[in-house]
């Protein structure tokens, strides 16, 4: 794992970003890479929704200055969202995130320290978020701004433990969290070789399909001042009128 000079090995944060071609793709990846470039001991796993790696993403990664692995995994045609499909249809990025999980399982040593974070290319991440997640042992959680029809969605914490969730959208979900609202310790992931995102999961249940195989809600580790600080925002970028 990459380390800062000085020898102290910070656990590597593996940032998993699925991405797909559309006009704003390059802009999104450029500004995300600029945020990630500030974070020490970070390895970016970029997984294209494509049949082969593209020069656009390859070139961008090569000049980003980051440590990275460039992967690809095409979404099967029958599962692909067609233009005009309502957004509540099947979740996106499943095959790509699972591809990253496969890479981790094939290349990381058992017991290797690290944290895995699923960072979509259009969200906004503060630098402090990465500091908070670095100490993840099992699964850590924190609030996410601008999601679920609320100003923010967040776990409810009492006595340092998660006791519930503040959310307005499908609160009956086992883990009513956004993809950007949790991180998983690498050892935990490697210890559960079957844990993955369910391609058949209904939208909103993707996170639960992974986390359910790893922890119970009571075992979640609250970060960001007992889940009172918003350090990540679920921003979405408009389609350019062209």
């Amino acid at each position, binding site marked *: 794992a990459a380390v800062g000079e000085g020898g102290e090995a910070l656990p590597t944060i593996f940032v998993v970003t699925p991405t797909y071609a559309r006009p704003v793709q390059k802009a999104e990846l450029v500004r995300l890479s600029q945020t990630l470039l500030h974070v020490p001991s970070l390895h970016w796993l970029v997984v294209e929704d494509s049949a082969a790696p593209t020069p656009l993403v390859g070139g961008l990664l090569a000049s980003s200055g980051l440590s990275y692995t460039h992967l690809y995994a095409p979404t099967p045609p029958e599962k692909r969202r067609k233009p005009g499909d309502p957004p509540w249809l099947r979740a996106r990025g499943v095959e790509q995130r699972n591809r990253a999980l496969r890479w981790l399982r094939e290349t990381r040593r058992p017991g290797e320290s690290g944290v895995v974070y699923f960072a979509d290319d259009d969200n906004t991440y503060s630098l402090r978020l990465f500091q908070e997640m670095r100490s993840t042992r099992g699964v850590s959680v924190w609030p996410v701004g601008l999601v679920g029809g609320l100003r923010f969605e967040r776990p409810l914490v009492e006595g340092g433990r998660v006791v519930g969730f503040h959310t307005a959208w499908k609160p009956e979900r086992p883990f009513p969290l956004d993809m950007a609202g949790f991180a998983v310790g690498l050892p935990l992931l490697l210890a559960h070789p079957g844990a993955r995102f369910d391609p058949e999961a209904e939208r909103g249940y993707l996170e639960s399909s992974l986390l359910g195989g790893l922890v119970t809600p009571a075992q979640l580790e609250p970060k960001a001042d007992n889940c009172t600080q*918003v350090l990540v925002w679920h921003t979405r970028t408009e389609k350019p009128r062209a």
Partner: protein
Amino acid sequence: MPKRRDILAIVLIVLPWTLLITVWHQSTIAPLLAVHKDDGGDSRRDLAAGLDSKEYCLSDRDIVEVVRTEYVYTRPPPWSDTLPTIHVITPTYSRPVQKAELTRLANTLLHVPNLHWILVEDSQRRTPLITRLLRDTGLNYTHLNVETPRNYKLRGDMRDPRIPRGTMQRNLALRWLRETFNKNNSQPGIVYFADDDNTYSLELFEEMRSTRKVSVWPVAFVGGLRYESPKVNAAGKVYGWKTVFDPHRPFAIDMAGFAVNLRLILQRSQACFKLRGVKGGYQESSLLRELVTLNDLEPKAANCTKILVWHTRTEKP
């Protein structure tokens, strides 16, 4: 029996080291980075050249993995005595995505050497949210505010629609520059208007640093096109505009598509963005026509063939 001066000597030696280790240990910014960042300015440029990177192909074809083992940059980069300062003027207004936009813009600006961020709130007074945000970034900044007058004849909270958003704020920043810097002996500087929702490559800032009067470049996602761009002839001069939206504007260019040398701002001390009576798309022209002619424009980004800035817009949540 140790003498008093021996004890004093030991204390004077041990105490500073104790303090140093305590402070170092508590520092929230990983101390490794600050200490081990060596000779400043050229570090980032050397990145492509001499870094220690391993590339190897795994069993799946076409997987590229690059592991870099060099240090991570201090935030922001150390100030250089030789680089012109880039004064980035960003008007901003309160709405749900504001903090997110400013956070990610700050993350970009933190990579740029000799950058001075002039953030101008559209508000009655400087807000605690923005005050805290600016302070926490570590950037070199100036925090201003001016409120665009509201039009009470319309629904409650509407600003005067005849004044394009951001105009008064940009003009205030220009006024601040003119009050702060003396046109005779000011440090070299470049002025750039960067709205808080666009996306800027780091290369863009280095391109604009050599601006003598006004430099220009393409901008993606404006004017109803994939990109808008100045048209550059074989002599390297701008002769027109590649755009579909009103190409006969004097300067058919987006706010993000040009930068102005600070000297020119100080010399033409009355030049500013026109407040009222400005048709859509003519804001930029209202300033630029008081500063330069077409012939004076300096094309950047490989004679305006590369996209280094994108006019992204964020959805309302």
